[in-house]
């Protein structure tokens, strides 16, 4: 109640500028329009089972989806996806279906910890192999993807055991008991090397394993929350981990350095997946959260590009290798399937890049849209173009820059020209202006018209330059003329008298120098006369 009393009784209307305007952004970004072009439908009916895992077969021919659904695995195939006969795996809840890299085998874990391997095309024929090592539910069953490795499989489960299997012989290559200190719920094989895989656990830690070195993790770092999903990005150097509502991207080559952290969901991020955009060929990291959102993250530019809302809590996410189908599994047993409408224009594009299947290492730069006159750059295009070697460059004629005194001389403002030249203090220019004034018969009148401060400038200039041999003959005459004409002005002003004192001192110095020189000349002359005889 106290909070209520502090509020104003009649709240004033909020300022119009602060109210968010109701209108939507007028134009969608191309990314958004891409994601919006997926038409969502439901694949499986609503029930009480969680769709914990979804997996697409890496086989290129037709998209084949496996979904863990209660005690069985649902299989869908074709475009659009149509259900195949479902596999009843065991009596317990099935987890984590995983296709082999050629799509021929499918491995599924269950609540008891038994992992079964089926033929993907003949699931009804029963399991080919049964791998038993785990004592609790195996939430991580993964085939390696790189290097065409067909014989190995790694599994991890709630018993914190990590096992690396040789599938044909049904024996583990090695097992790591207590690989984590809590449930292992996430795992991902590296796309760069078939021996490397990562696991994430509820003990907040993410560990990188190398099958060659075996029992000890080659890298371990802490995500900070219970890790629900880990995923290698296509380069194999970056690892995305999801835990809590945070997605973190790690540089595993650089020793587990955190590259970026995204906190875009409001509830726990449950699944990560990679999606290839068919229109541009770029790859996006998709994340599904229990808040019902799927968010698209551009890991090249490290920014969130789009978010899609689903009506239910999402637990799993997958995207078909060709990028046209996006499926999300919910906690209520519904599988949402988004299918991109095929446009005829997209067809050949998909031929070019979309059907590539495997995710690219680095996203290609999007082609720049052609400039149109709606764009300012359209009008300045080509202006900064640099000449190539061998091009004949026609230089722009240089604009002649006139100094200020030149401009004034053109306007016949003679005194201003002289003052401007004096103020610039370049003796060459001043003498040139004075000579020009002599040629115009205006120098004496100019000197007569100078104000007190300008006389000071002129006297200062004369003091500095009158004895320079180059200008002496001319400037001495000017100095005499100035003294003769402006004697009264100079007497009346204190400052000018100082200038005259300086001038006098300078003259005295010059006379002294001349005397010395004459003395030297007197000494040298007899010697020269002797030498010439």
């Amino acid at each position, binding site marked *: 109640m106290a909070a209520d009393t502090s509020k104003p009784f009649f709240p004033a209307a909020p300022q119009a500028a602060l109210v968010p305007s109701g209108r939507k952004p007028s134009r969608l970004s191309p990314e958004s329009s891409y994601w919006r072009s997926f038409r969502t439908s439901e694949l499986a009916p609503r029930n009480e089972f969680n769709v914990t895992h979804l997996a697409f077969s890496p086989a290129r021919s037709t998209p084949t989806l496996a979904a863990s659904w209660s005690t069985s695995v649902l299989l869908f195939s074709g475009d659009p996806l149509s259900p195949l006969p479902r596999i009843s795996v065991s009596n317990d809840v099935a987890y984590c279906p995983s296709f082999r890299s050629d799509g021929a085998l499918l491995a599924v874990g269950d609540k008891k910890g038994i992992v079964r391997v089926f033929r993907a095309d003949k699931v009804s024929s029963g399991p080919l192999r049964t791998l038993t090592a785990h004592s609790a539910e195996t939430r991580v069953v993964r085939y390696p993807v790189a290097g065409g490795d067909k014989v190995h499989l790694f599994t991890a489960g709630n018993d914190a055991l990590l096992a690396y299997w040789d599938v044909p012989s049904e024996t583990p290559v090695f097992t790591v008991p207590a690989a984590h200190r809590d449930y292992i719920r996430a795992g991902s094989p590296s796309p760069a090397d078939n021996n490397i895989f990562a696991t994430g656990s509820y003990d907040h830690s993410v560990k990188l394993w190398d099958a060659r070195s075996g029992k000890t993790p080659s890298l371990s770092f802490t995500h900070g929350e219970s890790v629900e999903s880990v995923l290698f990005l296509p380069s194999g150097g970056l690892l995305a981990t999801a835990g809590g509502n945070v997605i973190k991207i790690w540089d595993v080559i650089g020793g587990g350095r955190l590259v970026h952290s995204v906190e875009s969901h409001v509830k726990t991020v449950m699944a990560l997946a990679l999606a290839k955009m068919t229109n541009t060929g770029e790859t996006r990291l998709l994340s599904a959260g229990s808040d019902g959102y799927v968010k698209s993250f551009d890991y090249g530019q490290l920014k969130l590009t789009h978010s899609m809302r689903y009506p239910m809590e999402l637990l799993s996410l997958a995207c078909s290798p060709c990028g046209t189908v996006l499926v999300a599994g919910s906690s209520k047993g519904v599988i949402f399937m988004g299918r991109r409408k095929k446009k005829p224009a997209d067809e050949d594009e998909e031929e070019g890049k979309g059907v590539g299947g495997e995710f690219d290492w680095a996203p290609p730069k999007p082609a720049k849209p052609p400039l149109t006159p709606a764009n300012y750059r359209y009008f300045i295009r080509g202006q900064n173009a640099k000449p190539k070697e061998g091009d004949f460059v026609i230089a722009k004629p240089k604009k002649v820059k006139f100094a200020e005194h030149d401009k004034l001389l053109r306007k016949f403002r003679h005194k201003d020209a002289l003052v401007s030249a004096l103020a610039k203090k370049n003796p060459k220019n001043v003498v040139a202006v*004075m000579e020009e004034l*002599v040629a*115009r*018969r205006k120098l004496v009148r100019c000197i007569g018209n100078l104000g007190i401060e300008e006389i000071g400038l002129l006297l200062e200039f004369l003091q500095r330059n009158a004895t320079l041999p180059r200008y002496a*003959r*001319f400037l001495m*005459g*000017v100095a005499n003329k100035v003294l003769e004409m402006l004697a009264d002005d100079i007497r009346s002003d204190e400052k000018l008298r100082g200038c005259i004192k300086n001038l006098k001192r300078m003259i005295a110095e010059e006379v002294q120098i001349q005397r010395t020189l004459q003395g030297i000349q007197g000494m040298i002359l007899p010697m020269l006369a002797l030498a010439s005889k």
Partner: protein
Amino acid sequence: MITGGQSFVSAPPAFSADGRLLLVCTGRTVSVFSASTGMLVSELGGHEGDVTAVVVPPPPADAPAVAKVVSYCWTAGLDGVLICWDYVAAELVRKVQVGLPVHYMVIPNITRTSKGADVYARFAFVSVEDTSKPSKEGKALRGQMRIYDLTRGCQVGNLLAETRKPEKIVVSSSGEFLGITNKRKLHVWSVPVKDFKAENVRKIKLHHTKILNTLAFHPSERTVAGGDVTGRILIWRGFGNAKFSVSDGAKSKVDEDRDGVRGNSDADTCTTWHWHSGGVKFLKFSSDGAYLFSGGMEGVIVVWQLDTGKRRYKPRLGSPLLSFVDSPDSSISCVSCVNNQVHLLKMPNMEIMRSIAGIKLPISSPDLGGCYRDVYGFDYANRLVAVATEDYCIQFYDLFENSEISEVQVCERNFQPVDDITMYISLVSLSIDGNLMCTVDVKLPEEELGGLVTLKFWNQGSRAGKYFLSTVIYEPHSDAKISAIAFRPGKNMAATSSFGGNFKVWVQSTLSQPSDEKNQSGWRCQSVGSYKNKPLTAATFSTDGSVLAVAAESVITLWDPDNNALVGVIAEALSPITKLSFVGTSTFLMSLSQSSKPQVAVWNVPNLSMQWSYSLFAEAACCSSSRSEFAILALLSCPDGGTPAEQDGVILLFDAENPKPVSSWSVKKAKGGSIAFLKGDSSLVANTKDMIDGEASLLVYVNGSHEYVIFDPRNEELHIGKSARKNVQTEEPAPIGYASIYGELPKLESKKEVPEIPFTPSERPWETIFSGSSHVLPPLTKLCSAFLSSLLEKRPVANE
């Protein structure tokens, strides 16, 4: 004898009827130039006095076809003769005697009725000078306007007007109005165009408050423009409505308010425009009457839009303007400048197409006074004269070809015609082979401030008359002026003497770098000499270059130029010597004194004694380089005071040993003139007997207004004719008028004769396939295959 250097601008030129030739008055002849190339085509010579007017009468309106063939012009001269020429053939057609010097002439396009029909007749309105009246009295009316009937060759009517001096007559393009300026009035006559009778000429006066210079008539309206000495342009519109109009209805206008019209002048309105700061020299309406061209002292053609008074300019013509003439089809116009140049302007945009350049006139400025003497340099080998021009250039003029070779800009300053002179070229000297040039330019000080003497050495470029700057020496003799420059023959050495009491010997330092194409050699001072601190007034080298003679006022000192040692001193002359020269290869030295006690003296150098002397004022002198003879140009009257006579100078040719002149010629306008020996043209004198000395030299005399004559001083016969005139290629007649825009029209044959239809089978069947009347021919579709097959037959024949 070759004469040349005439003024091209003494009278306005005239275009021929087709606009392709330009007739320019040049002295006693009329030169015909091609308007497209600017080259001399022919000369019309027959006047005894200077030609003062050339008129190409407009073709008679009723006979346009004949005008293409007929190419007549009338000229008038100071000898009192009007001559009709066929200027294409350069033949004299007829003469009309006037008897008094004619100064201006116009021939309006008027007809006369005789025997009931319009007969084409020429009437010349001439402005003559009445020489019977004494010229001393200022009030005497010496100018007269007369009318001459050119077909009959006699005067008609009375005097139209009498003025103080002969006035320039202006005629409107229709020939209806004539006008002259008379002090502050314009006199305008209305001439009956048809049925001309001298009694029917009526006259009005238009008054102004300033002395009028020039006038122009509008081509279609009754408008006259007058320009006065202060630069104002007055435009009287509707002049003579009261008096000239036939009906008396115009009388009512007298009571109306007449804008700006002064006194009882007979005009509707008078407007004044003012842009020119000096006097207006010419006015001219464009042929469509929309624009008025004016020009004057400033060297700018101003184009006035007549309705609005807006101006456009054609600036930077470089010299005061004198006259403006446009061609009959108004595509070309020409403007004459004071500096003896005629510019041909392409008309709508006034771009200079060609310039016809004569020798430039001497600088005429009163404020230079005595300190300035006219500057000449003569190129002995290439027979060029170098004259200093007003715009700080040196013009090289070929004396034999009578054409400008080049101009060399000496001072870095733009020339403005209206400025007073602050800078001038005081000396020009060329070495005897013409390879080197030395100039001295003087910047005049302002109240003793900022004067500067600059000595510049130039090297010859690719050909004669092209020089490039080698060395600039500021204040070579501190601030003293330079009195003389002498080049040492055979060596790259020069000596300058100054009034400041010393002379300097300059040598070209040979710092030629092999890497550089150009010879980077500069000039430097080798030695300095002085004699008793006297001002040195003249210097010269002997012909072999071993002795340098320097005049120290009235004493001549002889120096060894290499060691800078005083060799000898020759006893004093009467007054300061202004020019020294060794006489050829002989041992004599000639000196001139040009002060109040003038003297021409010849000194014997080995004896250090005077040979002989005259007390003559010599304007100039020159010595032959090979023989022991020299020529002086003596002024007969004293330069200070005394009236200049007609023949005011005499050229005397002396042999150095003998005080008796070898020969003498009397000349005009000797003041400011000069003489020089030039290398004879060996090709011209090869067949004469004058080859004994191996080298015949000619004497050139340039008078005060830069006209010149070249003659052989030893042969009285005038056997050197003009050098074989360059054959002027007859140019392709350029299309004018309609043809210049749209090309030639195909000649339309009036009646096509239908030829007999040949049915004889020939070797070439395609000729016969289509021949025949159209009603007999089979349809074209059938003929086509036959025609094509006939073409096919031809191919194998051609291939074999």
